[in-house]
């Protein structure tokens, strides 16, 4: 059996595959962040919380929500709300719900900050993340909830060099589809062109009769929805806990910065590549696998300050 640096090639390939799976998550999450930053100039620190929200929506759907009788103090309200949905529905409901949350956040809070230093947008979303996380910790505890892999995707395929769970393969495919779709939407369609124009020169575009504020709201909601979708996809893989977002968020930031903060294609490619690099680090120097992304970020920022694919504003 051939070995590279003392690690069998088979094992290495397996790790690369796994890295690709993680990279898919990074790509999707950093995509949402890049969209929001690229088009709105807001560093959305609440992205991790939205990812977590998406996962919880999925879990609530599977667990089932029974609000038929709700006890408020000594009264019992008869609400008659009851729902239960599976993974496939969650793929739609999750992003929708999180997108709605995004709309509310943007309309109520973010709107006031556009004219100011981007610092304030960052701080606002940071505070929001703390609130959402704290509230969920109150109600759901820290151990989190388990989410079962959907029937159709459970089990594994033998790829020869490794056994890959079907679900993980699905994640790679799904995320590539979503990423490519978003890129296409923003870079190649008229809507995307309007979005880009509207954020560069809002007054001019508004003069043409386009509802720019609505577009801005929808952009933020869209980025949030992407995070929510990533959350739904992550639910069967990792435990659904209120802290799952905060563990990931700074790595995702690093990915976006490396890719170039306004570049959609940058974050997709970087996300995937970094996932793979992280996977390799896990084999050769596992303790550092959390840090390798930052190491790369520091280097990239020194050599190519605007990021690998970015354009400096």
């Amino acid at each position, binding site marked *: 059996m051939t070995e590279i640096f003392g690690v069998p090639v088979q094992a290495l390939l397996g790790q690369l595959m796994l890295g690709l799976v993680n990279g898919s998550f990074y790509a999707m999450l950093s995509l949402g962040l890049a969209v929001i930053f690229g088009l709105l100039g807001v560093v959305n620190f609440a992205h991790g919380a939205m990812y977590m929200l998406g996962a919880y929506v999925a879990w609530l759907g599977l667990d089932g929500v029974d609000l038929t009788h709700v006890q408020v103090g000594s009264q019992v309200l008869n609400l008659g709300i009851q729902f239960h949905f599976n993974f496939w529905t969650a793929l739609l409901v999750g992003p929708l719900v999180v997108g709605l949350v995004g709309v509310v956040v943007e309309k109520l809070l973010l709107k006031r900050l556009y004219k100011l230093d981007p610092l304030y947008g960052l701080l606002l979303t940071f*505070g929001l993340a703390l609130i959402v996380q704290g509230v969920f910790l109150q109600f759901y505890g820290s151990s989190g909830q388990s989410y079962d892999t959907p029937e159709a995707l459970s089990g594994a395929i033998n790829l020869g060099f490794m056994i890959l769970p079907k679900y993980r393969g699905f994640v790679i495919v799904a995320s590539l589809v979503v990423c490519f779709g978003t890129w296409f939407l923003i870079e190649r369609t008229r809507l995307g062109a309007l979005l880009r124009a509207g954020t560069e020169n809002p007054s001019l575009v508004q003069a043409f009769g386009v509802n720019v504020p609505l577009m801005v709201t929808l952009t933020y909601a869209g980025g949030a929805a992407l995070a929510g979708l990533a959350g739904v996809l992550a639910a069967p893989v990792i435990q659904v806990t209120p802290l799952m977002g905060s563990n990931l968020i700074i790595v995702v930031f690093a990915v976006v910065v490396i890719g170039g*903060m306004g570049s959609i294609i940058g974050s997709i490619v970087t996300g995937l590549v970094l996932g793979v690099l992280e996977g390799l680090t896990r084999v050769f120097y596992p303790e550092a696998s959390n840090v390798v992304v930052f190491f790369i970020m520091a280097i990239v920022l020194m050599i190519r300050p605007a990021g690998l694919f970015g354009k400096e504003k």
Partner: protein
Amino acid sequence: MSWLGNGTQRAGKIVWILALAFLLAAPFVGVYPIFVAQALCFAIFAIAFNLLLGYTGLLSFGHAAFFGGAAYVTAWLLQAQHLTPELALVGGVLAAAGAGVVIGAIAIRRQGIYFAMVTLALAYMLSFFFLEAPFTGGENGLQGIERGKLFGLISLENDLALYYFVLAVFVAVFLFVLRVVHSPYGQVLKAIRENEPRAISLGYNVDRYKLLAFVLSASLAGLGGALKVLVLHLATLQDVRWEQSGEVILMTLLGGLGTFAGPVVGAFTVVGLQNYLSDRAGSWTGVIIGCIFVLCVVAFRKGIVGELLAWQQRRAAAARRHD
């Protein structure tokens, strides 16, 4: 009283004298000195951070690395090397300054949000180093650090002695930063914050000014962390985590960016709140802090002191109109 009529500066000075008097008398009026000492350490941290953000316009997301890093070095010097506290403090500050030079030199090349992200990344790596290094005791941190004898003479184990020592250092830091900001160097920093291209066009070596500000800020932040080791007898990973960087941003913002009293007020408020809430609100503390953050950003951007000053100026302007 003509000596009061010379501008807001005099009025400001009265406030500070009163505040100082209160702090000097605090242990004797029933205030728990260890709590105040702890708050003062964070106040120093916040002042250092404000120097960078409020006066130079640079947002660093990794300042906790200096705060906590100096804490570790000081703790190690006290415990493993048996140095006296003032030497251990100097050691901690020098370590923070060194880290500041390295991180600052790399980060300065970028602007705005990119600068912040670079500081975050480098600080994260530094905190990883502290996690791995054997001398830091990993998750448990360095515990049971003895305060030792100041200059080999005064034992700081006595809480009162420690309190006045920390207060003295705080006043010294405060006066030092005051001096820096009002000096010609400080004026250039303000110019850089307002309009960097213009400052460059005026011939200033902007990078050097920014780097010096960064190193100063890092060193003072380190001093805060090192002092905290003396107050609480420990240095842990919590001090270097990026969430700690977020906390100091909150303190400065809440208190008032670019003011003098701001960071101090902010530090006392946040530390006080955390202390107060931990046994009353228990698990809701995080949510409440988050709400304050949001509130500050949306409605209270000038911070406590900033709002006070603005209100006072409005009253003064209104009074002038009535003359």
